[in-house]
Every structure is written in structure tokens, then in C-alpha cells.
């Protein structure tokens, strides 16, 4: 019993500050105030009707999807090469792939600012997609290499002796069996971009303002309680994402063969 109580307390300690935004998002106050004087859903209406908030939301969505696609394009082949082959400098490669995790985001942001500016990509969707796509590589790589290490290669052998060439083996066996791990990796890449603020602040400019960037600016200028609405929505999105990844992992083989 005692360990359970401790765990709940620890969870509360971690979550409580975040949960405060939920009541605040339903507040009637014109600025941040806790506890709220009264409740209504006016700020939700404001968020969902104002161009000023919907555009960054759409930008974030587009950028996160693009970054997710880019991350997967980079990570899937890299993970296969890394797990299945022995080569010189393997640990160095691992370090390089993990480096976005180690380098402070501010430093990455500064570097991207200079780099993307040179290619006229600063302030564009593509620029943010490139930056976010690279930043999400380590997390997706960790998830996908772990899945790949647990993959039984006899499955591929069985498929080949059944008459499937390399491509059909990949499509009918390797990919479906690895799909849950790939989905989780992609989901993490999506969330990592969707939540990223520091790099976006530097390179999104005026043309590709993301939600976190818009929130930051809004806090600085006006303390608009819509931020609490956005925060609540973001937190819900993350919670849903994590729950989805749990479901995907728990039921690896339930989906019928495509």
C-alpha cells in the first residue's frame, strides 16, 4: 500500500502544475488568475474562431506531419543498417545519431538559424520541418532500433523459403510485424515537433509561426487566457498520444494482415 501512495504522490507532484491550466482555460478572468473567479467556455470559442490562433495551429500540424515523415525517412533505413550490420565506427554513428538529444536546443536553434538562412529557408514551413525532423531523430531511432532488435529474423527466412523475394518479404512480413514499433516512433517524432518551442522561436519567423511560438509571444505581449486553452489542448493531445502508443504496443498482432 505504501509504495502505491508514494507513487501517486510523485505522480501528483509531476502532474499538478500542468493540470492547473485546465481550470484556468475555463476561467472568465481577462488575464491569468488561479483559482478562476467563474467558469465559461468563451476562450475556447475565441481559440476556435480566431484566425490569429487557428493559423499557428494549422502550421504546427503541417510542420509536425512533415517533420514526422522526414524523421521516419531518415531513421528507418538508419535503424535497419545499424541493427543488422556490423561495421567500423558503429558506436560513433550511434553517437552522431543521438547528438540532437545532447546538444542544447538553443545551440541547435542558432545553428539552424544561420544554416537555413543561407538557403532562404528561415521563416518557411520547410525550414522548420527540416529542423524538427532532425531533432526528432534520436527518439524515433531509440524506439525503432529497440523494435528491430526484438524482431525474429527467422520470420524473414520462413517467408523467403515460402517463396517470397526480398520486397515481398518486407511488405508482407517485416513491415507488418514492425508496424507497432514504427507507429510509436512516428508518434513520438510528431509530438516532439508539435511541442517544440525553442528552435521554432528562432527560425519560424513570421511565415511559419507554430503554436508554441505563438503562445510564447502571446504570453509576453498580453497574457491572453487563450494560452490556457491551447495548453489544455496540447496536454490532452500528448496524453492521447501516449495512451495510443500504449495501446499500439500492448496489442502488437491484433491488426489483420493487409
Amino acid at each position, binding site marked *: 500500500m505504501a509504495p502505491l501512495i508514494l507513487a501517486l504522490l510523485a505522480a501528483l507532484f509531476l502532474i499538478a502544475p500542468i493540470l492547473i491550466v485546465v481550470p484556468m482555460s475555463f476561467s472568465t478572468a481577462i488575464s491569468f488568475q488561479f483559482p478562476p473567479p467563474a467558469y465559461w467556455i468563451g476562450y475556447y470559442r475565441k481559440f476556435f474562431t480566431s484566425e490569429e490562433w487557428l493559423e499557428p495551429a494549422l502550421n504546427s500540424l503541417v510542420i509536425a506531419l512533415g517533420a514526422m515523415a522526414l524523421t521516419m525517412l531518415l531513421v528507418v533505413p538508419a535503424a535497419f543498417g545499424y541493427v543488422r550490420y556490423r561495421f567500423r565506427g558503429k558506436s560513433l554513428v550511434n553517437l552522431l545519431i543521438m547528438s540532437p538529444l545532447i546538444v542544447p536546443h538553443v545551440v541547435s536553434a542558432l545553428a539552424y538559424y544561420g544554416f537555413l538562412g543561407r538557403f532562404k529557408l528561415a521563416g518557411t514551413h520547410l525550414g522548420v520541418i527540416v529542423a524538427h525532423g532532425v531533432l526528432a531523430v534520436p527518439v524515433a531511432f531509440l524506439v525503432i532500433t529497440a523494435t528491430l532488435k526484438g524482431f525474429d529474423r*527467422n520470420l524473414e*527466412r*520462413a517467408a523467403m*523459403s515460402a517463396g517470397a523475394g526480398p520486397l515481398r518479404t518486407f511488405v508482407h512480413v517485416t513491415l507488418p510485424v514492425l508496424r507497432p514499433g514504427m507507429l510509436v516512433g512516428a508518434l513520438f517524432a510528431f509530438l516532439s515537433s508539435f511541442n517544440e518551442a525553442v528552435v521554432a522561436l528562432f527560425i519560424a519567423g513570421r511565415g511559419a509561426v507554430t503554436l508554441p511560438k505563438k503562445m510564447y509571444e502571446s504570453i509576453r505581449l498580453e497574457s491572453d487566457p487563450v494560452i490556457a486553452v491551447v495548453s489544455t489542448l496540447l496536454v490532452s493531445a500528448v496524453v492521447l498520444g501516449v495512451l495510443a502508443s500504449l495501446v499500439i504496443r500492448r496489442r502488437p498482432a491484433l491488426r489483420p*494482415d493487409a
Partner: protein
Amino acid sequence: MAYLRIDRLVKSYDGRVNAVDDVILDIARGEFLTLLGPSGSGKTTTLMMIAGFEEPTRGAIELAGEDLTRRKPYERNIGVVFQNYALFPHMTVARNVAFPLRMRRFPRAQQATRVGQMLRLVGLADYADRYPRELSGGQQQRVALARGLVFNPDVLLLDEPLGALDKSLREQMQVELKRIHREVGVTMVYVTHDQTEAMTMSDRIAVFNRGRLEQVAPPLEVYHRPRTRFVGEFIGDSNFFRGTVDPARWGRVELDGLGPIQADPEACRRIGGGLVDVLVRPERLQLAGPALPNTIAMKIAVTVNYGDSVLVIGDAGGHPIRVRMAGAPLDSVREGATVTVSWSPTDAHLIPHV
């Protein structure tokens, strides 16, 4: 007439040590051949080369006169059953079994019929819509067997297929496998390190040791007339004595430290004198009844009663001796007692000492 022909096959991973070293094997159509040996002896690597998963360093593999050596696994018509089943977890039993037919583009109607036949053959007709993880280990292995057989392969390869099952299930599956072999008549090459499995199921056994083939022969011949000391020790329980064949009198062998014995003169002549290892199986040694021509006095150290038989372990002048008697032990067979062990000259098998 050889159907599957393995000719001077060599596999080396590092260019120095040969995991498979100059293996020559002719396998007849419809034969049940077992590759037997300890782990790392090259039996699985040989199987993987027949399947096409590993490429031979040298040598050739031919099937019905066709060279398979460089052909991809999916260009061969060979089924494989793995120890860990390797069933596709995202497909039902029926789809697993149908997979080779889909890949080989069998007509749809025929696919369903074949899958039904195979599931009946392995006794899983009612499990078509289950997923592999809903089945027991034995059932999963039956599905793997059905998947390996469904496309009428020229050869079915089995890599320790019963290794993950518990003892009683393993024995049940051995009988089942033999029945399926009889019914289907497909050539089977079976890898195991379990000598009992090899003895009970095979038409012939190929014994591997350190990448080399030690002997290929029917089970009883491998058991009674092993070609090397390794084979004699690896298969069954054994007593080995070192001795010298007397070239002046064929049939007389001088055992080191134990004196002369009589052996088969024909066998002595074939060996032609010199050092030999003399193998006498524990069940051929006698502790009671009229003494046979060869006798040794032995002090009993331990008796182990198995109920249906008794294993007597004794000592004769520093040589450990194992005797297996059917039934219950006699009164004279007590630990500490000295008894006379005897055997008939034809029960001693001579192997030239190397």
C-alpha cells in the same frame, strides 16, 4: 540414386576455421535423414546452406540433378520448420499456412483446399481462424509444419523443431512427425542434438563433429558399429577400452591393464593390428548367468535403479565400467561387492585408434 546431393561443402565465416568442413552427403528421395551432433558441430549451418540462407564457401548442393548452390531461398522449392516456429504473428493459422501458396501464386480455389488438407493432416482443422499466440507450443509447431509442407516442397528441412517442447509433448510429436513423413512421403532433413530423437525417427543418421561428418548410417548401425570413438560416445551409453590387436592371432585383443579378450577375428583382420578402441555397450555386459567368454572382475561403486532397469557403475583396475541390467537387481549386486562382468566376443566393437 541420390536425390539431394551435398558435395564437398565448406562454410567458413572468418576464412580460418571451417564451420562446415568438406561434407559429402547423398540423400535419397523420401528419406528421413537426421543431422546429429553437439552444438557448433556444423549441422545447422549445413541445413541453412541447403535452405539457401547461408552461402557455401566451397562445394555444391544439387537437387534431382539441378545445381542449387547459388540459388536464392525463394527460388528453391524447399520448406523449412524452425525451432521457435517463426509463425507470422499478424496472420491467422489459415493465412500462415496459405502464405507459401499466395507467394507461389497458386489458384485461389486450390489454396483453400490445400490449406484445409494440411490443417487436417496436422490435426488443427478447427484452429484455422486463431492467431499463433492463442496456440500452445505444440500446436504452433504443427502450424509451422503445415506451412512448410503446403506447397509440396521437394525437401522439408527441420531445425530442432521439437527443441522448445517439454518431454512428453516431444515424444508425442516424434510419433506425429513420423506419421506425417509416411503419409506425405516428402524427403526430410532433420537437425537435432538429441540422440534419442535421431534414433527413433531416422532412416539414416549423419553424425557431425567439429564441422566434419563422422558417419552416415542407419540408426542401429550407428549405435552398434560406430565408425569413430566420438560417434560411439555421443550416441548411447558406452564402455570404451584401449587395446592392441594381436597380429599373430586374429581375434585376440590385449586390453591395456585388463588382459587379453576375444574379439571378432574378421574385425581384427580388417583393422590389421595396432591400437584399437574397444566399445562394449552397457546392456551387452552380463552380471549374472553363465559367464560369457570375456570376463572382467569389477567392484561395484554405485547402483542406480530406474525401475525397469538398473545401471551398475563399477571399477575394474581403475577403468570405470557401466552395466545396464533389465529388471530388478540381483542380491549379489550390492554396492561394494565384487562381481564378474562378462560379454560375448561379437558384442565388442573395434574402432582403429587415432
